[in-house]
Structures are given as C-alpha cells and as structure tokens.
C-alpha cells in the first residue's frame, strides 16, 4: 500500500480492538475501492458515524476513522462515494439497512451494469420473500390455531385466498378480549414477515437468505479446506484456520436462527409481543444478520478467484474474518468470542508469512471488487 496512506492510518490505529457489541463491531459496507474493502460503519461518540478498517489493503491492524474523513483517507470510487453519502443519512445502522442502501446505489449503476442487475434481482427476490413468508405465516397460524374438526382441507392444500379467509377467522376467534382486532393483527403479521425475511421459518420452506448464506459459507469453506489439504503446509494451515472461523460463526448462527425461528412456533403470542415490545423480537431476529454480516463478501472472494488465485483469495478472506463480539457469549452457549480471537490470531500470524500478490494501484482490483458486489448482492 502507499506509504502516505500507511502514515495517515497510523494516527487512527485502534490498538486492541475488542468490540463488546455487534454495533461496536460495525456493519460491513460493500466498498469497491481496494483500500476500503472490508470496511465497516459504526456509530461513534455523539452518534457521529465512524469507519472501521481491518487490515486495509494488506496493512496490519484495525483503524477507526471519522466517517466524514473517508474521502481524505483515499480517493473512493464513484460507487463508494454514493454509498458513503447514502449511508451517512441512515437513522439506524443495521446490516439490513446498510444492505438496502448499498443495493439502491448499486442498482443505479454506480458499480457497473452487472452489479446493478444483481442488486435489482436481489431487491426483487427480497420482496418475493416477504410475500411468500407472509403466506407461510398465515398457513402456520391456521395450522396452529384453527379449531380441530373444522372439516376443511389442510391449509397447505387450500387456495391462497381461502387460506387468507381462514386466517382472518382464526384471528377473530382468538380475540377473546378487545386488545387486537383482526385488521391490526394482519398488519402486524405483515410487519413480522418483513422482520423475519432474513431468517425465515424452521426448515426454510421459503428459501430465506440467512439459512442459505449458512449453506453457502459451509460449501465455500469445504472447498477451501479441500484446497488446503491438496496444497502446501502453509495452505493447509490457512484453510484450517478459515475453516475454524467459519465453524465458530456457523455454530453461533445456527443458535441465533433457531432462537429467532422458535418465536414463530406460537404466532398468536408473537403477534401480541410484536405489538407490545417489537424491539425484543427484533433483537432475536437480527442476531443472525449481525453474525453473518461480512461473510457474503468472504464467500464471494473465494467464488470469484481463479484456481491460480486461490492463495491470494485466502489471504484476503483471512483479513476479512469478522470478530465475534462479547455479547454473543450471553446466548450462544460457548466461548465463541475467545475461540474466534484465537483463530484470528492464527490467521494474523499466517498472513505475515505470505506475500500479497496484489497491485492496489490498478483498476483491475476495483473491477474484481465490483464483481464481488454482484456476487454478494
């Protein structure tokens, strides 16, 4: 990397970077500028956003800069400037809000036509996912709460309009007090569909993105480990460390997804909770999104690398493996933070032993990063 950038960065070195919460870790931003790859945004002091850069362009360490200083740090690409401006205006920083803002920028063509098309497809598929999930919630509601012996066919064999009617009748029937009219309950169900769009239902009948991302991480890591086993001792070591980082993350993600999906086992109760304390429902639902935030890009790095570029890809993947914040320890049932810290320490040592064969100055890397954007949309 350029020496002036290294010197500039040294002023913002974060020293021992141990985020306690996901918010402190920050949300991954899909930058295309090589120096910004893997960058995250987080709320800083007085809620002014900050840019968290872990190992930017091969430089070791974590650096925390004011979000406003991003263009002074390095000339961002056209796409990154637009993302920077759009995210700056977000009231709430979550993986979902940042992803939605970034997709809008990509869909406008700032990262090229391929990324634009991918962003539009992803947005469309999210909308479909919401509709599908809403329908499945109605099915679930009917299954869970329709009085037995109604003589009606199982809801999954009924027509969508009949299912909607049956769900309304169920909601009417469940209304023992005057607290929740069916219209409000239907509205709440729509909001819940939107909230659960990432996690989906148990067994993932709707093809929700987070369970699919878990499968993608597992598949990619399997390939990485196979590549490592077929290569040098150095490759093997790196692949095993990446494999372990993925395994720790997936163990936590499975717990998070199961806890989130368990809320759907009693939909009527969930509707009530949603009306009273939506934040507690969301907190459970968002854990999976936060945990897997950044892994889409890690998988895309592997997918986009040609066979001869695997070592370089592994090097970049190792630099992007996210920390697991201490808050995960409260609910995941094992010392995920400690395990990930040890693994990241190993990856850091490994990164020092290999040379990056990357030319940060040419446009080729930017082009590659735009492909990542399309792959990870």
């Amino acid at each position, binding site marked *: 990397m350029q020496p002036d950038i290294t010197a500039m960065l040294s002023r913002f070195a974060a020293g021992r970077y141990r985020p306690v919460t996901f918010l402190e870790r920050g949300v991954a931003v899909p930058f295309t500028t090589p120096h910004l790859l893997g960058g995250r945004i987080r709320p800083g002091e007085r809620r002014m956003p900050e840019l968290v850069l872990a190992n930017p362009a091969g430089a070791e360490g974590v650096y925390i800069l004011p979000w406003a200083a991003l263009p002074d740090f390095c*000339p*961002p*690409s*056209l796409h990154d*400037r637009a993302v920077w401006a759009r995210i700056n205006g977000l009231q709430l920083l979550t993986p979902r809000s940042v992803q939605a803002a970034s997709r809008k920028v990509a869909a*406008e*063509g*700032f990262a*090229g*036509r*391929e990324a634009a*098309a991918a962003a539009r497809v992803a947005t469309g598929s999210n909308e479909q996912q919401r509709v599908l999930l809403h329908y499945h919630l109605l099915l679930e509601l009917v299954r869970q709460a329709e009085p037995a012996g109604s003589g009606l066919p199982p809801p999954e064999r009924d027509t969508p309009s009949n299912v909607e009617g049956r769900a309304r009748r169920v909601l009417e029937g469940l209304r023992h007090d005057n607290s929740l009219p069916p219209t409000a309950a239907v509205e709440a169900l729509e909001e819940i569909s939107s909230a659960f769009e990432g996690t989906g239902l148990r067994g993932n009948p709707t093809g929700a993105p987070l369970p699919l991302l878990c499968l993608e991480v597992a598949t990619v890591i399997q390939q990485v480990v196979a590549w490592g086993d077929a290569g040098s001792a150095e490759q093997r070591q790196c692949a095993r460390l990446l494999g372990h980082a993925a395994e720790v993350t997936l163990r936590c993600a499975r717990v998070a997804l199961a806890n989130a999906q368990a809320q759907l086992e009693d939909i009527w109760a969930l509707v009530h909770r949603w009306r009273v304390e939506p934040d507690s429902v969301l907190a459970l639902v968002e854990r999976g999104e936060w945990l897997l935030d950044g892994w889409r890009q890690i998988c895309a790095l592997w997918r986009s690398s040609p066979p001869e570029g695997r070592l370089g890809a592994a090097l970049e993947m190792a630099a992007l493996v996210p920390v697991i914040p201490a808050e995960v320890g409260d609910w995941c049932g094992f010392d995920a933070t400690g395990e990930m810290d040890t693994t990241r320490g190993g990856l850091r040592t490994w990164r020092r032993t290999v040379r990056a064969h990357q030319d940060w100055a*040419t*446009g*080729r890397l930017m*082009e590659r990063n735009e492909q990542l954007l399309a792959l990870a949309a």
Partner: protein
Amino acid sequence: MKSLAREVNWLGKATAQADEKALARVVQVLDGLKDRGAADQVLAQARQRLRALRPARPLGFMRVLFLPLDGAIVASARWRRGEPLVPRSALAPLAQLVQQRLGAQAEQVAAGCEGRTTADLAGVAQLGAMLWPVAALALPAAPPPAWAETGLSAADYGAIAGLCRPLWEQGELLWAAMAAGPEGPPEPLARAALQAMLPAGPQPTTAALAALVGRAASPGQVAMIAAQLEPLCRAAAQEALDRVLDQPLPQLDLLDLAAATSTAATLVARLEDLERCSLIHGERQRRLVALKRTADEACRERFLAGMETQVMTPAGQMMAGSPASDTVVLSLETGARQLRGLELVGRRLGSGAAYDKAMATMTEALVRLAPMAGDGADDLRRVDLARLVEILSGPDAAVQMLAAGGG
C-alpha cells in the same frame, strides 16, 4: 509452379500483416496439416511476429526435439558457415534421423505429444527429459542420405550436429531456464544452464544464451550472468544483446488492445532491464535509446487508435441511438480499462505528458456527451459515462461530471 509460388508469397505477406487473431487461425490451420509442403513458406514471412507472440503450437516430435535450439534456428538463406546457427532446412532430416535411430523411444515421445501444445511447459519438460539426452547420443558422425536434399555439405552436417549434441545433452537444464523466462528467468536457473554449457565450448554456449535471452523477461540480466561466468563469454553475451537490440519491435497496431497491453508490458520490462545492464554502453546505448523511442511511439499510436475504436466511436454510436445493452457497455468499460493499462505501461517509456493530454481530451469528449445521455435500459446513461470517466481519469473527474449535470 510460378503461380503457386506467387500465391504462397502473397499469402505469406498477408499473414505477416494479419492481426494476431487471424495469424493464430492461419497457424492453427497450417499446424493441422500433416505435410505442410509449400504452405510452410506462408509462415516464413511471419516468423518474426510468431517469435514475439509465441502462440501455443501443437507439440510434435520435431518441435520438442529442437526447442533447446530455439535461439539458433534461422531461415536457410540467413545461415552462414561458422556461426552457431541451424538452418531451418536441416531440421526435418535431423529429426527423421533421430526418430529412426531411437525407434520405440521416439514413438513414445511422439505419442506423448498428442493433444499437447508448447504452452504445456511441464509437458515439454517431461517429454524433453525422455528425448534430449538420448537424441544427443543418437546422432551419427556421418550425414544421412537425405542430407543432400538440404543443399548443405557433409562438413556442414558435422558442424550442425556438433552444435545440437551439447544443447540436447543439457536440454533439461536449458529448458528449465527457458520455461522460466517470463520470471526473469531466476538467476540460479540461468546460471546453472549456462554453466552446464561451458565445457561444450563457445558456440553451443552462444546458442544456449540466444535461446535463453529470446524468452527472457530480463535479457540484460541473463547476458550479465553469462559475461560473469568466463571472460570468453563476454563476447557471446554482447552478441546476444546485439540480437535483442536488432530484433524488430512487436507490431502493436496488429494486436487487439488487451494483447497490445500485455505485449507492451513485456517489452517495457525488457527495455528497462536492458537499461540496467552494464554491458550496454556507447553505440549499444544509443541503439537502446532509439529502440525505446520507437516503442514509446508505437505505444502512443496504439493508445490513440484504441481510444478512438474502443471508446470514442462506440460511445458516440450509442449516443446516436445504437443500443447500449449491458454487454455493449461492459465491452466499452473493458476497452477503457485496457487503455488505462496501456497508458500505465506507456508512461514508463517517458511520454507522460502525451498521455495526460490524450486522457484529458477523451474525458472532455465524454463529458460533452453527458447532457445527451438517456435513461432507458438500452441507453448509454449518464452514470455509464461517469464510470468511463472514472476508469480513465479517476473518481474525482467522474464526480465533477455528475455534479456539473446535477447527477
């Protein structure tokens, strides 16, 4: 017969001037012929270009056999007695002779060549290891009867065979260094190959050096290694450098932009290496400066032509209504990226200001198109133009363009 010769000559000229894709197709067709006969003459005029482009050629017994002599093979008309060279007319009779004498071993090598090309460096190494050492022992002292057809004397056979034997004996070491040419070759490989040639005398060493230098990304460094091995090698090293300096430059105008960029990058690396070579001074230094100037001009011309054909003309056509599909826009961006690559390479030859000016002209022209940009799916949009400006002149220029148009 006269008309056949005329046709072959015409085809040869056309091949020499064809773009690299057409040339590759001609080579592929001719390589596919069992007996090329007069058609071989078609390639004769394009040999300089083939040497520079090195397209992958199908492996065959003869091609593998003579790879260690790559730097010594010349057209029969250019061959002179006493020089460490092999006339092309001698290749077939020598290969036939070795093939006959090796029998089953030769058949095994020929079978191993099936489906492989010269791009398979490890495959060549494997087949060469089977062939070269035994070929060195197989050449008889007297010429075969077919030798008379080459037009060369029996004494010439002795000299040519005498050159081939040591190069085949050390073929494995030599090929290891030749194959690693794009990486230098690394000093230990080049040194080992040249050192192994020394006992064979100056002529085989010169031929080996020519083979190494011809494929080296760092010909100056290879020549320096040779010169340091033994005082006698200094002359051979300078001779090898003379050949490098005499070599015509690759014709960038006949290459597509991607190939022109990678060829120019290789050329510039070679020239920079020669600049660092202490064996080049005086007259050679002047020739090197002239070569660099010519290369600089060729790069700039290719850049300007590419600017027109890859970016300005298609962008203009799209603004005039030609559909700007995703594929077309992607190809426009690819063209712009290739131009940027050529510019980065070209700047190393010294004409930075010329590239600045050309880039500024191109950016201004694209900015002028912006107000006419549409926003339909098949339009070249303002954001597409901004991305082109970003690729060519950086994000600040692109942001300025968008800001100027309220984008």
